[in-house]
């Protein structure tokens, strides 16, 4: 009897503990047990376990999602103006965009330390204009746009950071003459060049600068990944069109049985540049493999490969032959041995080519149209199958077999596993990023959204959890554990050292020099200081607004009527926007971002007088206004 009741208590305790543990998991967003609905349900007020950064494709930006709820949290403007926050409209971001109003953002790359995401920066490419942006994950803002990178034509294999974020890379997808000049397209094989660029990343600031460029055969350089572990120091690039076709590529570039992937020893490349072995073309140091040796090699890959992905251990390089039903897995040790033994079968414009059989480790028959591969923490790889609209799960290592497949909807391109391209994938989820959505969601006419599916990787079989639309057009994406990011929620006013910043009401003023007018103003609930600005027709007016708030989520907007001038100023931030007084009359302006109970009252007027009207060189707010504002700020 006693024994029985003890057992009963033990069972009850175990059940209770189990419930408590399950409850803890659930509060992290999405439990491991239960129905698919329970696994994606993140209770109101609770947060997701992962941030997912989806490239915005030809929308030119980055979408931020929470996983597993698949809620769209925000969109970070990167290569495309965004009118609500005024990205590309205020002077600083306008200068950063460099006159471009479009970009095609393909491959987000999180910064890494020791091959794992460190949560500092997100890099992303603009393929057509050969630019790379750095988003600071402290505030989720684009802080640098590097480029157009000289000599690079369509940076598709980009940016794919190295394991300690020493470099990000770019390679030409559409070769052009280097330097670009008036040549005949028909002289493609003679005059066109592929270029691979290594862009240095400052380890402290993340600032990008030119490292080196390599002149490559004019193949179409497609995708990239960084070596890690034993392959640390090497960067891999796939290519198609080793046929060097310049027209009808659909047919002509699909003829060869073998294309290539390139292996670049980036330390050796940088060393060669530092030793002055490069030729400067358009300001970039370009290495010619016909003259400089021992830093770049080509390895044959069957049938127009697409993705190249290095497994978490860094031992294997997995190339997806998109016109072939296999993933070709190469052993880095074999590649290195062949290079060391100089076992070359020839060269392509100075780049030595290794033998396929010398480097291959395994062929995995994954299915039709393999494009990209990601990894989990249990020794499995996941390859997207464009033609089969499936994901294949296969064993990395003998017997190199497919163990599971799952349908996705439809025509999957990239896939994103949780930290799935790092040294330590978490093995929780994979998201299928599909090119076609067809009938999956409520119809919105001919322009279909894209589709994505969340798939659970924690069980022995992949399990479809959720299906959600995305806006045009995520290519690659990256998923990072939420506890690795610690964004600020206001800009500390004390650290604001922008030239246009003012922090005291006494410093608010309107300054005039010729026809340039600078308004140094404050925004704070719920008024602009100054809120009356008198200028003359033809004046160039620069509004420098500083938001004095230090409270979460109290952003103010500044929008001028009958103009395209609008921006949002975050707490503690200073932004400048330029507006030209074109016509005499009155132009109201207002706070365009709902801020407070008296938001509607947050407005002002610009009075535009006739050209040449007398105006003081400097106008300040009256003493009463200054006193009122200072009373608010006195505690600081």
């Amino acid at each position, binding site marked *: 009897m006693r024994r029985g009741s003890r057992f009963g208590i033990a069972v009850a305790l175990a059940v209770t503990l189990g419930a408590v543990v399950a409850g803890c998991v659930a509060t992290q967003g999405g439990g491991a047990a239960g129905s698919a609905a329970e696994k994606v349900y993140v209770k109101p007020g609770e947060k997701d376990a992962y941030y997912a950064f989806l490239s915005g494709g030809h929308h030119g930006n980055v979408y931020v999602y929470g996983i597993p709820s698949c809620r769209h949290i925000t969109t970070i403007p990167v290569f495309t103006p965004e009118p609500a926050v005024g990205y590309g409209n205020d002077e600083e971001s306008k200068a950063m965009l460099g006159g471009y109003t479009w970009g095609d953002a393909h491959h987000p790359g999180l910064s890494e330390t020791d091959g794992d995401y460190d949560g500092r920066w997100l890099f992303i490419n603009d393929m057509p204009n050969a630019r790379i942006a750095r988003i600071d994950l402290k505030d989720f803002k684009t802080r640098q746009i590097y480029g157009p990178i000289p000599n690079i034509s369509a940076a598709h294999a980009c940016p794919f950071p190295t394991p300690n974020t020493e470099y990000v890379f770019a390679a030409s997808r559409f070769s052009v003459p280097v330097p670009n000049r008036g040549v005949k397209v028909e002289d493609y094989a003679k005059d066109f060049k592929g270029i691979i660029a290594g862009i240095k990343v400052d380890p402290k600031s993340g600032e990008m600068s030119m490292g080196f460029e390599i002149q490559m055969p004019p193949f179409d350089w497609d995708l990239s990944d960084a070596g890690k572990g034993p392959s640390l120091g090497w960067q891999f690039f796939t290519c198609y069109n080793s046929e060097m076709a310049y027209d009808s590529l659909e047919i002509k570039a699909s003829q060869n049985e073998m294309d290539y992937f390139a292996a670049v020893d980036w330390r050796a490349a940088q060393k060669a540049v530092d030793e002055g072995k490069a030729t400067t073309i358009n300001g970039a140091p370009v290495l010619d493999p016909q003259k400089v040796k021992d830093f770049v090699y080509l390895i044959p890959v069957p049938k127009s490969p697409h993705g190249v992905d290095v497994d978490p251990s860094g031992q294997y390089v997995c190339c997806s032959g998109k016109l072939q039903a296999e993933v070709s897995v190469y052993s880095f040790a074999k590649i290195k041995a062949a290079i060391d033994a100089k076992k070359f079968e020839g060269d392509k414009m100075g780049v030595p080519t290794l033998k396929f059989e010398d480097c291959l480790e395994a062929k995995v028959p994954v299915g039709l149209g393999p494009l990209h591969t990601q990894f989990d923490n249990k020794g499995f790889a996941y390859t997207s199958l464009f033609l089969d609209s499936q994901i294949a799960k296969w064993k990395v290592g003998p017997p190199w077999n497919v163990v599971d497949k799952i349908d996705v909807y439809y025509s999957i391109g990239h896939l994103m596993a949780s930290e799935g391209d790092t040294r330590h994938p978490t093995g929780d989820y994979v998201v299928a990023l599909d090119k076609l959505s067809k009938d999956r969601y409520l119809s919105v006419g001919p322009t279909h959204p894209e589709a994505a599916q969340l798939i659970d990787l924690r069980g022995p079989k992949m399990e479809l959890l959720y299906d959600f639309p995305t806006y045009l057009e995520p290519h690659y994406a990256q998923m990072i554990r939420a506890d690795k990011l610690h964004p600020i929620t206001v800009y500390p006013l004390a650290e604001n050292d922008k030239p246009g910043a003012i922090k005291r009401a006494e410093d608010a003023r309107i300054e005039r020099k010729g026809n340039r007018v600078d308004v140094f103003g404050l925004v*704070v*609930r719920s008024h602009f200081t100054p809120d009356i600005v008198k200028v003359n027709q033809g004046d160039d007016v620069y509004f420098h607004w500083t938001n004095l*708030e*230090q*409270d979460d989520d109290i952003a103010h907007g500044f929008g001028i009527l009958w103009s395209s001038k609008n921006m949002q100023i975050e707490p503690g931030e200073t932004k400048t926007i330029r507006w030209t007084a074109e016509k005499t009359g009155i132009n109201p302006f207002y706070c365009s971002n709902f801020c*407070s*109970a*008296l938001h509607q*009252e947050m407005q002002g007027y610009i009075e535009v007088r006739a050209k040449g009207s007398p105006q003081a060189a400097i106008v300040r707010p009256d003493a009463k206004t200054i006193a009122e504002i200072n*009373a*608010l*700020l*006195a*505690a*600081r």
Partner: protein
Amino acid sequence: MSYLSEKFRPTERGLILFAAVVLLPVFFLPVFPIWHMHLRAPQYPEGLNLAIYTNTIRGDVDKINMLNHYVGMHAITAADFREFSYMPQLLTGFGVLALLAGLTGRRWLAMLGWLAFTGFAVYMFRDYVLWLYHYGHDLDPRAAIKLQVFTPPVIGFKQMANFKVWSYPGLGTWLLGVAWALGPIAVLAERYGRSRSRAHEVASGTVGA
């Protein structure tokens, strides 16, 4: 008169010295707030906090001022409080008095110090209530939102517009309370000790009943 001129016994002197030690962190290290206010509103689920110390005021002062300006409340600023310039010094004085009383055992010194300390506490509490009254009553007539005059809660809970407000003493006040209570405790301890030793003397026959 003779009671006041007598000295405390070592036990009571120890209690008084302990009172000086308890006062120490409050006057030397203004790390223990003497009063707290905690405000919660739907849009501030994590709450806003004010912590009043002997020499300053900390917490979400800016955020609270920003909200209060809508109802025309005076901005709360440390510079407005003369109290911050004398409270630490006065507390230091009480600490020194307790130290001296403990070391010398002079009963009159201890009593004087305790009485002054009591007066100080009553005065400061009254002062605090007056400040709260001032903030809730002396409102700017030009304020955007016109409120009925009010007094924020001195101690306890009050609903004020969309804010729930809790007001309660901080660790500093509890320490001051302990130091204060050690006065009567010392007196009572002495009496108890005396009556025990007297009873002992009676029982042993050294003193006649």
